[in-house]
């Protein structure tokens, strides 16, 4: 199949979990990568090496282990800076996950009554609730880009929505429910035109597309480690250096200070200003290794692979009677997550039958309730592929859906 990663077999060998069998001895067919990606051996090994040989606290430690850990941690920052093409390593702040990165922005960007924040109806809850809470605290207004019936952003009223009172325009690059790839550079330019900050949620984009913050022209961009083959417990906030240095501190604590007295404290510059306390050291090291791994394979190649698998999956799914795919039907306009309905069977029940065959998918609202509500759907089933997904796994899914229909007697 044209477009697949050339060494797919070799790549699969990098991921130990793919050899697992599940209850009944069936092999694992992991189609839940938009939820969290699997981890290559090299990432696990980098973490073990840190824990077994170099473990120490960073920055504050003067000894050799401290120097080694600091170098590894700050080296991970360099790798992530290169991964998103940041113009300076100081623009990369390590957070706990994408959710913390978004909340950091929602807590530190100043909003007041009369201001507004514009988000979209296809956001993940992390990019919704964080701003709902911020707008409530500030008495600001939350506005929403709507969606078209085919799952794209409805930009027809964009000029009214984004106006001179807009402080923030926050949007996802790739929807985790609809798969839609949004025109992020255009949206960033719209924000810029009115003097608002643009915030890009790249949680689903970073795993599968080349991310170039300078080309996008945004002010802030976030993603999460566990979806790019890294561990949990680590996320990334990228921001323009001068903007980060203008934001007030987020959490108070060790390492974010310049000096502390009983009367008052002064704060370090970015990135340290936003990294209070002992950061996720071994997690950052794992993430640095993960983005290196992805970079080595090549994000363009991974993107092509995802689109090939997605096209194949869209065809396969639509061959099953009763299946309705949500979101764009053209693989070129979407990422590798496909949510769908199967007439007469609830997503939980679909997922259960698939699971009995070793196929892991997600069922529910995927932390995107407003997007589900927009399409009048209470919940859906989502399959999501990644660089290790094979066409045979898609075949297994399609076969499993046929089986589901017969099990629930809707065939």
């Amino acid at each position, binding site marked *: 199949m044209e477009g697949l990663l050339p060494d797919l077999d070799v790549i699969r060998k990098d991921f130990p979990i793919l050899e697992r069998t599940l*209850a*009944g001895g*069936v092999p694992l067919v992991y189609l839940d990568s938009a939820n969290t990606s699997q981890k290559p051996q090299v990432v696990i090994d980098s973490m073990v090496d840190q824990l077994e040989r170099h473990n120490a606290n960073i920055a504050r430690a003067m000894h050799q282990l401290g120097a080694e850990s600091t170098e590894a941690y700050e080296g991970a920052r360099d790798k992530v800076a290169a991964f998103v093409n940041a113009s300076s390593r100081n623009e990369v702040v390590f957070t706990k996950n994408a959710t913390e990165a978004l909340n950091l922005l929602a807590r530190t960007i100043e909003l007041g009554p009369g201001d507004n924040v514009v988000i979209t109806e296809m956001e993940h809850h992390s990019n919704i609730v964080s701003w709902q809470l911020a707008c409530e605290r500030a008495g600001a207004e939350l506005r929403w880009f709507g969606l078209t019936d085919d799952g794209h952003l409805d930009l027809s009223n964009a000029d009214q929505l984004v106006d001179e009172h807009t402080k923030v325009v926050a949007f996802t690059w790739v929807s985790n429910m609809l798969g839609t790839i949004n025109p992020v550079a255009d949206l960033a330019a719209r924000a810029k035109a009115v003097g608002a900050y643009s915030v890009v949620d790249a949680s689903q984009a970073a795993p599968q597309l080349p991310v170039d913050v300078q080309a996008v022209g945004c002010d802030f961009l976030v993603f999460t480690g566990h979806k790019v083959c890294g561990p949990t417990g680590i996320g990334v906030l990228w921001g323009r250096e001068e903007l980060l240095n203008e934001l007030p501190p987020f959490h108070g604590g060790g390492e974010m200070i310049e000096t502390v007295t009983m009367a008052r404290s002064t704060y370090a510059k970015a990135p340290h200003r936003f990294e209070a306390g002992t950061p996720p050291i071994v997690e950052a090291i794992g993430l640095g290794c993960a983005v290196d791994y992805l970079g080595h394979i090549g994000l363009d190649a991974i993107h092509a692979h995802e689109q090939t698998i997605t096209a194949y999956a869209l065809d396969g799914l639509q061959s099953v009677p009763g299946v309705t795919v949500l979101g764009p039907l053209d693989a070129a306009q979407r990422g590798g997550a496909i949510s769908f309905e199967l007439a007469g069977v*609830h*997503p*939980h*029940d679909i997922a*259960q*039958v698939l699971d*009995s*065959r070793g196929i892991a998918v997600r*069922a*529910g*609202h995927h932390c995107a*309730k407003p997007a*589900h509500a927009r399409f009048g759907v*209470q*919940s859906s089933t989502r399959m999501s592929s990644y660089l290790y997904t094979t066409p045979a796994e898609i075949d297994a899914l399609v076969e499993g859906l046929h089986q589901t229909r017969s*099990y*629930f007697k809707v065939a």
Partner: protein
Amino acid sequence: MSTDLDALYQEIILDHYKNPHHKGLRDPFESEVHHVNPTCGDEVTLRVHLADGPRGPVVQDVSYDSVGCSISQASASVLTDLVIGKPVDEAMTIHQTFLELMQGKGQVEPDEDVLEDGIAFAGVAKFPARVKCALLSWMAWKDATAQAQSDSATTGGDTA
């Protein structure tokens, strides 16, 4: 593997799912609650109507409207079969028995005398992700009943 599935999807469950008993919202009622399974979004709106009985309050009616999977739908249907017409005390005991079955990780032997069709859910206890589905309407019922009782207590009813 399909043995496993069949342990979960007992015929009784699928029957209740296809033909749920007592479904729909009805009057009169003393309390109405809305519960959600935050993970998957399944929802139930449930009403409770109590009446005075010779030995304390009785569950006169339980009516509900819900969206959800086979397990959560069938479980609401079985719940209503089990509690409607029972004294509240007794219904609470049934609730407790069902809860213990569900939280028993498949190790608890179900008591058919108490749970009737509810014993079909024994297999669900082995699927931790589905236990919440089975309990959604049961938790809603308990909540609604507690509300109805405390309301009647504050409004001076003598049912408590």
